[in-house]
């Protein structure tokens, strides 16, 4: 039995009725150790979101197995929290109610719920915004509320699907720092999808580069430099060049494939 998240030989083929089956992923194996920060990098359409949804238990695999702490993943569970690209907070709930949503579904008593939600809001820097509605928040604040909601479940692995893609560059950098802070204080594992090489380099313990569809693992790049990292340090620049090259090859491949279609 291995602790942490173990994705072994996972494949996924979508078979939409009346259309060609889509091979989204083929034979993907990734081990995420406890407390490890893994970033998935790959061209559009290579199955990164699909993989994250399968780990979350929202999609089934068509081959291979996903296990968490040795138990096979079949359904969503509180130890795996998913954060979407656009923070899909419920617009009819206040920030506080959104953050406490999972707790109230799990019937945590109101007193304890309020205490935990307040604590989380403070940690993500939204202490003053608890009674506002999502439409009154900036994009960055919304994403922090989503993070707080995910943390409310005390997850052991955070699954994040391009969480900062919709934010402007400055907010994005702040949110990355913020995420690292949260991560180091919880020591949960993180599996994060991004398109951005800079983001991957700023965050990851290990970058997993995917090929064009059907997605396979093209390369795994461990990064040992301590955080916060200077993106202009010579070894980081080297890594950035290397990642960009790997990614560009695959992006070109996927474009060629689309042209052939």
């Amino acid at each position, binding site marked *: 039995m291995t602790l942490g998240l173990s994705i072994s030989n996972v494949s996924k083929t979508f078979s939409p009725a009346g259309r060609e089956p889509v091979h989204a992923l083929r034979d993907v194996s990734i081990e995420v150790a406890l407390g490890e920060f893994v970033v998935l990098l790959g061209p559009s359409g290579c199955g990164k979101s699909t993989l994250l*949804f399968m780990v*979350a*238990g*929202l999609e089934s695999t068509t081959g291979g197995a996903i296990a968490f702490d040795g138990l096979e993943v079949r359904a*969503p*569970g*509180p130890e*795996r*929290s*998913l954060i*979407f690209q*656009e923070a*899909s907070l*419920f*617009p*009819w709930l206040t920030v506080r109610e959104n953050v406490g*949503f*999972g707790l109230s*579904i*799990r019937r945590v008593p109101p007193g304890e719920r309020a205490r935990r939600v307040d604590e989380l809001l403070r940690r993500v820097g939204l202490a003053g915004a608890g009674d506002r*509605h999502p*439409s009154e928040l900036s994009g960055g604040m919304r994403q922090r509320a989503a993070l707080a909601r995910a943390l409310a*479940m005390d997850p052991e692995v955070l699954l994040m699907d391009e969480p900062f893609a919709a934010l402007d560059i400055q907010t994005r950098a702040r949110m990355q720092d913020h995420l690292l802070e949260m991560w180091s204080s919880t020591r949960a594992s993180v599996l994060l999808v991004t398109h951005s090489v800079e983001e991957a380099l700023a965050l990851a313990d290990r970058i997993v580069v995917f090929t064009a569809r059907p997605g396979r693992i093209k390369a795994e790049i461990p990064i040992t430099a301590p955080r916060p990292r200077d993106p202009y340090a010579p070894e980081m620049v080297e890594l950035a060049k290397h990642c960009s090259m790997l990614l560009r090859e695959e992006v070109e491949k996927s474009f060629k494939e689309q042209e052939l279609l």
Partner: protein
Amino acid sequence: MAISDTGSRRMRRAAPRIPFGGWPEAGRATGRAAISAGWWCASLGLLVGFWELAWAVGWANPILLPPPHIFLADLTDQFRYFDPTGGRAGAMGEGGSVWSVLGVVGWTTMRVTVGLVLGFVLSLFVGVAIRYFDVVGKLTLPLVTILAPISPVAWIPVAVFLFGIGNAPAIFLVFVAIFFVMTLSTLTQIDQVPKEYIQLARTVGASKRQIYRHVILPAILPGLFVTLRMNLFAAWMVVLIAEAVGVGSGLGQVTMMARNTFNASLVFFTMTLIGLTGFLFDKAFGLIQRKVLWWVGPSNVGGL
């Protein structure tokens, strides 16, 4: 009706463009309201002006098309046609005061309101049941789809067979006028709930019941209210028809009686009442919508 509403929205938006310079912050809202009211008066004044002009030059026969200053002149005389007891056919006796007029308006409004509330609640219930229970869906959906296009007018005989005369058939007709449309709208709304909302609820372990209760219901309510509001005027038309043919009281009955007795003044007075009541009804509805179901955002609320 949709057109007139768009018109009033445009007017409201146009208001700040009027070259008045800037109001002080506090007075701005009042100023805007005043300008909006001004446009309302201008719009109504246009109709009244043409009508009075037509009368003055002799185009409009004052017996058949009495202009406002005539049909509003003998108001108190008209009041006696309004029987506020609400239950009797062909009545013309108890009335005679402003209160009796308000009584009649009240009865009609009550019938619309009860019909709307029943229709809304039951269609929500049925719509959710169709999606929630597979068997209910398979059994009910074809029926709903077949019954939906039948005009409420065609239901009048059924209403009378089922309920005789009185309040019940009128309420039933209002109910029928919105029930099927609202049921289908409930289904559409459920199908359009963003799938992220549902996935999100599933990731925290929500059951199907919890997803319907905590996610789907709040997500569809604002859209349903918009549909309901679009069907308000249809409900008003139906209640008037029902009152005219089968109930024997209310604004519809007064209109019908006025027609039968060639009392043109009464016809136009009643039409004015109907217009005003419908307008106020819609405004009240919009207010509730904004207070209770604000989360669709102002661009969708009331955007008929």
